[in-house]
């Protein structure tokens, strides 16, 4: 298992490098200049100075390697410095956003908590809804509950989140006035009242994302449980006179959760991508909103870095899913 993990880790490195190259080149080779928002009245020599100051006049490969070094070496050093109060980085140049002239990782650090609270809660609730629905649907296959569950899942991933989100805003925020329409990022939870406020503003975005995730995961759970219910060991367990509750919740559930766990791990990074839309609906200024803002003003370093972070998340969770699969199911050890 250890050698498999190490081998898997090593193959992840070239993948990440290739992805970083693809992202960097795609963003970089696109037409448009970082100075397109600077007025035309600025004289050419000043423009040249500005380009030099941004480092945008260097050849592509130089900028790519510099960016790689900053991403994988300098920024982690700054991270360590911030955590332990050391001074490893010694003022080395960081990845600077062209838009706000602030280190990109600082922006990400400011935006990430909002995204994580909303997305994390939503994913957790989604999984908690999906599991019982999936299990019961499979246990009573073709019952009315199963039919309703199928429809719920179908509708869940067919109705786009930006529609459900706006529908919920319209019903619960505008007409009923139960929840605020806009997520207030400055709100700090200090006492009971602010906690309740936090819950109220999280309710709608979390519902939208949770329903969407639950739809997909409940389908996987259902098919996985169905597959296991037909296995010989289930018949054996029943033949021994074991109660249905124990058969289903202990024997079947444990085995059927193996693929579900990997699906949950694989789905997490895509949720970050999907959260871009949810953040736009509810005006949450999380990392997705930062990306959209950066795209709209051609802030290339921010776009490249945030997009690459998404890619790192995907590769990381693929790795976690693979390793989890190996740990949970001894039949699928790769070595």
């Amino acid at each position, binding site marked *: 298992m250890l050698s498999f993990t190490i081998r898997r880790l090593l193959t992840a490195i070239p993948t990440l490098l290739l*992805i970083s190259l693809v992202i960097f080149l795609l963003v970089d080779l696109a*037409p448009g200049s970082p100075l397109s928002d600077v007025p035309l009245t600025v004289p050419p020599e000043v423009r040249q100075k500005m380009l030099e100051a941004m480092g945008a006049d260097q050849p592509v490969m130089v900028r790519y390697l510099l960016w790689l070094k900053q991403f994988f070496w300098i920024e982690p050093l700054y991270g360590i410095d911030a955590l332990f109060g050391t001074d490893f980085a010694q003022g080395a140049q960081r990845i600077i956003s062209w838009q706000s002239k602030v280190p990109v990782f600082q922006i990400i650090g400011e935006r990430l908590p909002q995204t994580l609270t909303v997305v994390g809660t939503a994913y957790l609730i989604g999984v908690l809804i999906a599991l019982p629905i999936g299990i019961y649907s499979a246990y009573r296959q073709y019952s009315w509950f199963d039919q309703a569950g199928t429809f719920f899942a179908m509708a869940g991933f067919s*109705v786009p989140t930006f*529609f459900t989100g706006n529908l919920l805003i*319209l019903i619960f925020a*505008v007409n009923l006035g139960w929840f605020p329409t806009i997520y207030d990022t400055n709100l700090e939870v200090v006492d009971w009242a602010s906690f309740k406020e936090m819950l109220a503003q999280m309710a709608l975005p979390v519902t939208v994302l949770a329903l969407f995730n639950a739809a997909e995961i409940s389908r996987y759970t259902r098919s996985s449980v169905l597959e296991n219910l037909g296995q010989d060991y289930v018949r054996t367990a029943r033949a021994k006179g074991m109660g249905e509750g124990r058969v289903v919740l202990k024997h079947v559930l444990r085995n059927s959760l193996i693929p579900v766990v990997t699906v949950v791990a694989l789905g997490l990074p895509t949720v970050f991508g999907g959260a871009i839309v949810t953040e*736009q609906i509810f005006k949450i200024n999380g990392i997705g909103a930062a990306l959209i803002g950066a*795209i709209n003003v051609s802030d290339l370093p921010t*776009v490249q870095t945030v997009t690459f972070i998404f*890619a790192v998340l995907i590769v990381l969770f693929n790795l976690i899913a693979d390793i989890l699969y190996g740990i949970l199911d001894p039949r699928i050890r790769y070595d």
Partner: protein
Amino acid sequence: MTEITLQTEKVRGPWADVWAQFRKHKGAMFALWTLGTLAVVCLLGPLVWRIDPNFIESDTVKMFRMRNQGPSLAHPLGTDQLGRDMLARMMFGGRISLAVGLVAMLVAIFIGTTVGVIAGYFRRLDGLLMRLTDLFLALPLLPLLLVMIFLFRDPVAGVLGPRLGTFLLIVMAIGLTSWMQAARVVRGEVLALKEREFVLAARSIGTPSRRIITRHILPNVLSPVLVAATLGIAAAIITESVLSFLGLGFPPDFPTWGRLLYDGIAEIRTYPERVMWPGIAISLTVLSVNYIGDGLRDALDPRIRGR
């Protein structure tokens, strides 16, 4: 009595079997009707409802009176903030949304099938192509789509015009980022098919690889490709509407349902129906397409068929 049994035992083609099984799936049949109705209304509706979707009254006083009307006989779905007829816009938008879904799906399926067949058939290219597929699967697709469209929209529109340019860019971008599932499924099928006797027989009489692929392999991977294609339409329509919703989609004089919804968001409090109509249209279409895909998967699976 005997006549009837004879008739049912008449030789039926494989597609008749598939159709018979498909008809048993009530949800899929209902979805087929819904989608058919929507498509017919969008395609043939403008022949009957002859208001130009981009018509804006040039007389300012009249234009102001035309704005934001509720449903009436003259405008069954009301008018928008510039006095344009919503029914005409919905039908026009539906045409483009459906076209985007279809063409993007065709691009994705074409790339996916090609990659899948080549990877499955030629062992030497397998490793390389599957690495490529894995690489694409690890890309953060939505952010990259946004970046691609934002950065290349104006240059492409400058060459091909804003309408055709945006259409081609969005369709190609969606197609290029959604072929991986099809490639994987096709590769798996081809790997199994390649070892079957009829392929072996074809090879033993000296059939060149190209002919084996077109005559023997492709017809046999048709069913998984069909299912992937159906689901691909739904995914493409959703992706396009997400792009439109984030403001990186089609121009307002060439709207899709997603763009109409995006335009309606600004005034959702006063005129919620302008968000509802496009939203319902997108949801119904995608739901129908997904149900049809589900029905097709059951109908094309020989293990389930005839049960």
